[in-house]
């Protein structure tokens, strides 16, 4: 790893860091050397990862500002609305491009440049592979004001679908020349060095478009015909301590896996909290009992799985009495909606045959309903937005066992990872090799891959 001290002289530069190679550590070390460093990343999870590292390294909070590119830009855009022209409400979709473009224009005003110059002595941008063209333009403008270094891994650039398609060679390094590529796989050094070596080797193969073999190495390969081979999912984790993630590219399959695992794995929600938002929209659509009842039923279907009754089996006494009890609040949904809904959810959680596999979703929905019940929000949508924003700031706690997509698990690490039905990566339209690399580089101790064949060959990535 290059010494942080040696990087201080770099006015503009790029550090390429494969997963687990100590990138966050290096960022924290470089950041600590300045009086006030700005570290920009893409997600709130990224912010939390960097903050946690800074805290562990006892770097004073005041010395490093950590923000998302979007969050930082929004702050500046609203501070200088005349030139940046931010949208009035929270930007959505392509409006973010306007925000980035607007702040880039603002940085053309000398007085605003002086503010940036006075605020930071160095800017570090993390996860640069996730930047789109507008963000790159912004980074170029920032680098003209303050020394700027970018950190990232071309092989983890899985947001091609969202426009993060910058070419490292032609576009990124034209402004930020390669300073160093990190070479030591720290993540596995103490826990499973062989796995680290295997992942590094797989990375090289994926870049070339070569075949990656699963058998004969540190990877546990299990034959399975499809993703829903629960045996593979559960056997691989038997007796294992620590965090476990199952990673599949398809969100729908992830939810179904979670349901099939009957709460053994929890699905996590994306930051946009689509399901909660839809719940809120349905709830707000009409204050009538049937609409609200159906909305709750729909939520139940999304987040709970009911074990089917066996033949000859009849509902238990407990279940029957709970169902009776639920009828009471169900009747008052139109008049005392939020309180009734909370009561219903509380009782539903107790149903003996119901298993919750989207705990995060249901907990957030309950919080949103509480906001409404307490009169802090006028509509469910407003409450949902508030809870979502709060989660963005406070961060989420990962369940011990998670099933989710590479997009959501990117940047996180788990003790053990299962990749069900590896062949599905070949059906991804974009960035299939990168998605697979992100999936296999998450575990620190063990990696289990299931599938119908013991190898995988994917199209070479666009870097």
């Amino acid at each position, binding site marked *: 790893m290059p010494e942080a001290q040696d990087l201080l002289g770099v006015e503009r530069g790029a550090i390429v860091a494969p997963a687990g190679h100590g990138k966050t550590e290096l960022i924290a070390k470089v950041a600590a050397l300045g009086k006030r460093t700005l570290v920009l990343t893409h997600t709130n999870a990224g912010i939390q990862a960097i903050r946690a590292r800074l805290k562990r390294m006892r770097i004073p909070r005041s010395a490093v500002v950590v923000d998302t590119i979007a969050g930082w830009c929004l702050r500046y855009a609203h*501070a200088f609305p005349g030139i940046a022209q931010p949208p009035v409400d929270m930007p959505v979709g392509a409006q973010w491009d306007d925000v980035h473009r607007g702040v880039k224009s603002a940085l053309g005003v000398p007085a605003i440049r002086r503010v940036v110059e*006075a605020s930071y002595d160095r800017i570090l941008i993390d996860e640069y592979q996730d930047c789109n063209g507008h963000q790159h333009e912004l980074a170029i403008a920032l680098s003209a004001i303050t020394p700027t270094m970018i950190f990232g891994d071309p092989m983890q650039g899985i947001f091609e679908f969202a426009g993060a398609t910058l070419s490292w060679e032609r576009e990124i390094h034209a402004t930020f020349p390669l300073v160093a590529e990190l070479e030591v796989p720290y993540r596995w050094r103490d826990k499973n060095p062989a796995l680290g070596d295997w992942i590094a080797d797989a990375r090289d193969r994926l870049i070339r478009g070569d075949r990656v073999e699963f058998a004969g190495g540190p990877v546990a390969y299990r034959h399975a015909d499809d993703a829903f081979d629960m045996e593979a999912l559960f056997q691989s984790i038997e007796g294992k301590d620590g965090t476990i993630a199952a990673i599949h590219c398809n969100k729908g399959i992830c939810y179904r896996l979670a349901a099939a695992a009957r709460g053994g794995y929890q699905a996590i929600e994306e930051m946009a909290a689509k399901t909660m938002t839809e719940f809120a929209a349905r709830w707000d659509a009409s204050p009538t009992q049937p609409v609200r009842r159906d909305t709750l039923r729909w939520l139940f279907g999304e987040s709970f799985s009911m074990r089917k009754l066996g033949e000859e089996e009849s509902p238990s006494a407990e279940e029957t009495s709970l169902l009776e009890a639920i009828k009471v609040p169900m009747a008052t949904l139109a008049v005392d909606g939020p309180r009734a809904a909370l009561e219903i959810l509380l009782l539903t959680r107790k149903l003996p045959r119901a298993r919750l596999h989207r705990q995060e979703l249901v907990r957030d929905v309950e919080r949103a309903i509480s906001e409404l019940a307490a009169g802090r929000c006028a509509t469910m949508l407003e409450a949902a937005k508030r809870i979502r924003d709060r989660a963005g700031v406070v961060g989420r706690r990962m369940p011990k066992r998670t099933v989710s997509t590479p997009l959501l698990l990117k940047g996180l690490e788990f003790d053990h990872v299962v990749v069900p039905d590896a062949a599905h990566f070949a059906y991804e339209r974009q960035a299939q090799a990168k998605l697979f690399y992100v999936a296999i580089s998450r575990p620190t101790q063990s990696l289990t891959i299931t599938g119908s064949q013991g190898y995988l060959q994917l199209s070479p990535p666009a870097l």
Partner: protein
Amino acid sequence: MQIRHLKAEDFRGTATLEWAPGAAFCCLIGPGDAGKSTVLDAIEAVLSSRWFSFGEHDFHRGDTAKTIVVEVTVGELSKALKSDERFGLYVRGWTKAGVLRDEPEDDDEAVLTVRLSVDATLEPVWQVVCDRADEPRTISNRDRALFGLVRLAGDDARHLGWGQGSVLSRLTGDSDEAAVRLAAAYKAARDSANLGEIESLAKTAGAAEVFAKGLGAYVEAGYGPGLELGRGGLSSGSIALHDGGVPLRLAGLGTRRLATLAIQKSAITEGAIVLVDEIEHGLEPHRVMGAISQLRGDQARAAEAKRPIGQVLITTHSEVALGEAGAESLRVCRTTRPARVTTIIKPGAPDPIRALMRFAPRALFSRRILVSEGNTEVGVVNGVREFWPPLYGGIPIEHLGGFIADGNGSQAPQIALGLRGLGYDIAVFRDSDTDLSAEDAAALGAQGIPVFEYGAGLDVEHAIISVASDAQMQRLIEHLRVERGAGKIDDNLRAALGMTAEALAQQFSTWELNSTLDAAELRRRIADECTSRKWLKDQRIARGAGPIAWQVATESPDSPLAQTFAAARAWLYA
């Protein structure tokens, strides 16, 4: 830091006040109660890190229903202020043309506006404001200290000791260590009063000495820390600067003030804003000049080294200070009655003001100025004015803010116009031997500046001599003989009048008999001689002729001389 703009409403003696200083060094003048101190008070109230407690007297006309609002817009901002963790996102733009723009554009300078408001609750609120922020941002005392404001008002001995929060204690060490070091110092002080052995205190005292000397404070034997046990026994305030064993607070007023200013200023590393009331207070003229030149020199050196220049705003009643500060720094402060609108005006064209500062700097400290064409007029009118007070209940024109200024001959109209532009009441007093140019006449007329002249091509010499009685002529000639030398006067008159020395030695009343000239011609020739030889072109000599002129005018009330004097007098006493 430099103040770009100041705006105050209902603060003390001013109902409204707006000012863009426009320079790093400004010298505020104006008659008493013109609002000069209110301007400095307003700036200090907003930018000082001290807590101010407000009372009814701070409100305009004592009316607490009208909220005090003072806004100061500051440029040449330090890095700390511009940082987005503090107020960077609140910066506004100050255009090259000197206009405030809420959001900076183009080449605008980044500036911050700090607002102090005090409503009927008397609770002051300090905020950084800009129109585009939903909420103004409260600014703490600690952050206000970043504006680096230093005020030297009266005589404040607080800064000459190591008391809590004093500048010296700050200079003694970084804030964390200072307390510890001071605590150790007090302990050591208790053990032995030999404070000079405490290195940190001695070093600071030494540094303070250098700063103070730099501004021209007199140092006797060298500064050192000394113990001053007062009421309450040993406390943080017990250690004070001593000069050769004598507490500095007992030094002369000027030295004390200069030392205080120097020590305060030295504690601010980047471009301090220095406010000084009556810089001349307690100082001899040469030390006033020294202090001003040092303050300006500091700015010039900072500019040279591309460091922040800061700003110095002083008020003065001293022409010495004004002369040293220069015409460009001159700002004239004035508060209208009864509306109490305070204006601060910068000379439009500095040239006539430069001339005025050379010939009559004192005029700038008055309200109503009779710009007189040259030495003769200034002298004669000044001489005559001594006879006016009895006509006005014993009040001299000076008590009403009146002043008779030297207009330096043909520059008089330009000087008059320049002064009018600064808001003074102006009239011109002039000879009629040359006509006022049409342009000048029009310009003076347009500004409503009255012109007093004798008319009919008369200058003051002719105006006096043409109507003087024989006795008055005799007095005048005697006066000239005393002042200019009898030989010279008589030689010139002999040639001009074709008279013998013996004849000239007789009383004036006999001259006509001994001359071939008639009375009128005789007087005309004497006046011609008087003018061409410039016998009265000296303020002192002309002033000596004042009593004669007054007598002449009194005895010939219909003469152009009397009429003109009366008009000027009426204007000055209006």
